């Protein structure tokens, strides 16, 4: 299945703080929902293991995350690929760090994800809602971790 998504998250921190956070692969890795392992390869590459449960399909996904920050545009592109138990996901996302003007920051994100294998077949009916929830949760975690 092919999923398009977009949204925004208001973060109660200045853009500089948010930008610094997004460039820390360790911290970004830990924002993935249900993450159990984060291994930083270098400044822009992280390996992560997450627990996945879509309908009756449950298991671990091993993901490779690639971060491409563009300081001049205050934008970070993220590429996530990997999978497990015969399934695969390929996700690309871009997030713009925008000054909200009130001391806070708007994180505007959009992207697309493709899921293949049992996770797409068995979870098909609930996958879209579940995927949107997970993406929202990821940015929610960014918000939470910056705020704390």
């Amino acid at each position, binding site marked *: 299945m092919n999923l398009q998504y977009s949204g925004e998250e208001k973060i109660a921190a200045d853009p500089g703080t948010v930008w610094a956070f997004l460039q820390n692969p360790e911290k970004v890795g830990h924002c993935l929902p249900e993450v159990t392992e984060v291994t930083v390869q270098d400044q822009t590459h992280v390996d992560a293991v997450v627990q996945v449960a879509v309908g009756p399909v449950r298991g671990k996904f091993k993901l490779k995350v690639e971060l491409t920050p563009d300081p001049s545009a205050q934008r970070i592109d993220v590429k996530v690929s990997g999978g497990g138990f015969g399934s695969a996901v*390929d996700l690309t996302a871009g997030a713009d760090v925008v000054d909200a003007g009130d001391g806070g920051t708007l994180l505007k994100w959009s992207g697309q994800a493709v899921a293949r294998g049992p996770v797409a077949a068995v979870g098909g009916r609930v996958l879209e809602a579940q995927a949107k929830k997970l993406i929202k949760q990821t940015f929610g975690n960014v918000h939470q971790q910056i705020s704390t």
Partner: protein
Amino acid sequence: MSTERKHEGSLGMAMKRKEDPRFIQGKGRYVDDISLPGMLYMALVRSPYPHAEIVSIDISEAMKVPGVKAVIAGKDLDAAGLGWLPTFHGLDKQMVLAIGKVLFQYQEVAAVFAETRAAAADGAEAVQVNYKPLPVVADPFAAKTDKVILRPDRERKTNHIYHWEVGDREATVKALAASSKRIKQRIWFQRCHPAPLEPCGCVAYFDTMGRLQFYVTSQAPHVYRTALAIVTGIPEDKIHVISPDIGGGFGNKVPVYPGYVCAIVGALKLACPVKWIETRTENLTSTGFARDYHMDVEIGATAEGRVTALHVATTADHGAFDAAADPTKYPAGMFGVVTGSYDFPVAHAEVDAYFTNKAPGGIAYRCSFRVTEASFAIERAMDILADELNMNAADLRRKNFVRKEQFPYPSPLGFTYDSGDYHKTLDTALEKVGYHSLLNEQAEKRTRGELMGIGISTFTEVVGAGPSKHFDILGIKMFDSAEIRIHPTGAGIVRAGTKSQGQGHETTWAQIVAEELGLDPQNIMVEEGDTDTAPYGLGTYASRSTPVAGAAIAMAARRIREKARKVAAHLLEVGEADVEWKDYRFQVRGVPAKSVTMKEVAFAAYTNMAQNEPGLEASYYYDPPNMTFPNGTYIAVVDIDRETGESKVRKFIAVDDCGTIINPLIVEGQIHGGLTEGFAMAFMQEIQYDSEGNHLNTNFTDYLVPTSLETPHWETAKTITPSPHHPIGAKGVGESPNVGSPAAFVNAVMDALSPLGIRHMDMPLTRDKVWRAIRDAEAREKAS
């Protein structure tokens, strides 16, 4: 054949199946019951991508999994010359394990061998494959554009596999143009899967003599032996294929699958027995599917309803490899039977097949090489024509049937139909179902807006492949064989080149011998599936067992009878010419009191044979002179709930004509099973892929098999028109109900929906699909 009195258990007797006590007590012996010392288990790594380049395969983590002994990938096999195996169609080849790229989701990528099944599965999970996704072609109409070439390994750089045609195109076009009535309809027979309850599997090992011992769920063990010899280079005498009990095949267990080759390679490499048993998901996603034919059907007729011409143009989706196991000369199988039971003056059929990023296969599911598709197309189209002509569907059929006196009937698409009495079969069915009172009931219900439909299918099948001049698999001619040995006590053994997967051969074959030799069928053992002992045969599929091997058994038995006659003459102290076979015994001509039984002769053949050669055995390789043409009339009565879209099959009558019946109990059982599968296709089953090439029906929650709760009550009846060229007149029946019934169900639903202006819908006719069609029709009516 004697007809003066029936011998116990002989032809036509409803003898209980000899094999059933074993099966119903859980004592069947299937491949997964085989366990050998030191046996390893194999699991396959499969691709989640439908089309992707394989960038790398990393097995290091897999090798660390406790119990994992080895992992092999496509390049390892390729280096050993085992990268590809020929498909049974013979004009294409299939990757054993993916080489360079994957072409369908769940394609085999690597094989893991481990001490336990769980360790093998864990090892497979730990193999890291790095894929680079490629554009997906999940539809044959997109494949036609050739924007993405799926098989650059082939000489022709196109997704088009073949064009096949039969009949007179020019005359058909002309006749259609001149017809006062014409209908045209695209009819899609959806992709479905036979889903046998036992999935595919094997156990492979090399014995102390270096001989491959290969237990496998095969419908055609001898063809496997030859194919494995060709693929692996192992001399054929060093290969022993054994098919033990099989839990359903339906054509799914005809092809040689990549997993088998991997298991053999593993057994050789690791010098251990290797077992591989598919999971349900693997069976549904990677082994032989059925259908996926998009058929544009056009019929011309006179205003009075006499058909004038038929044209069918089909786009076939064959998936990633051309693995439809059709005879070499017939890439679209027996699709030429698409003129059905009707006397078309002229016809033309053509099929164009394409590669897509889907699992390969196409001809499985109780279907004689595309006959189910052809039958569905013509039986649906005849109903659409009846609708166009505002004519009763039974009357239209009756008007156009091939008449009894026209047999042997040369069809415009090249077959010679052997026998039939279509009018009688139809009339029997109409009478049994109470057709006229049903029509009255329907008329009355329609005045109240209730949706009731009566669907008729008057199909003709072509089975019993086949005459060696036309039919082969991988070049091997499609004869079949039997070997019979009668022991001194009058018991015996029959071995045949076929392989039962539930058809009841252990009973049926014994009954043919009982009929021919006057022996007790309970003491005639039947053995199949062991290539060391059975004579070479092409196996059981396409309803060919009784038409071909059944004939071989009758002919071998007659050879035994001729030999026995000499011994009988010696016992009766008369010349051989004075001995006749009558009432299941040898009698002195004109002196019936002076006789000996076959049992007595058998004993003498070993104890008192005089100058005759000792022993009593014979074999026969039967090359059928023609195909057989079973036929029938099926009528379904359906009520549809207007509010929920649910179709309820209230009544179903199947009148089959399969020629001479060997065992009516078994024939009826075959019909019940086939109707249930036809019902499943009509209302429940579809293998779906999304536009990304994801397989969406990977298990029994998403791919439905009817249980006794959903299955309607079946009523059966028969007419008997023996095949004139078969030694006992039998035609075969295994596939008739699957070939004939989908159209009866769909015709009934369409008949019910016809007051709403709905003329055609593709299967499966699920509740939601019918509900939507009703709502759309109501909206259209409101708008107008």
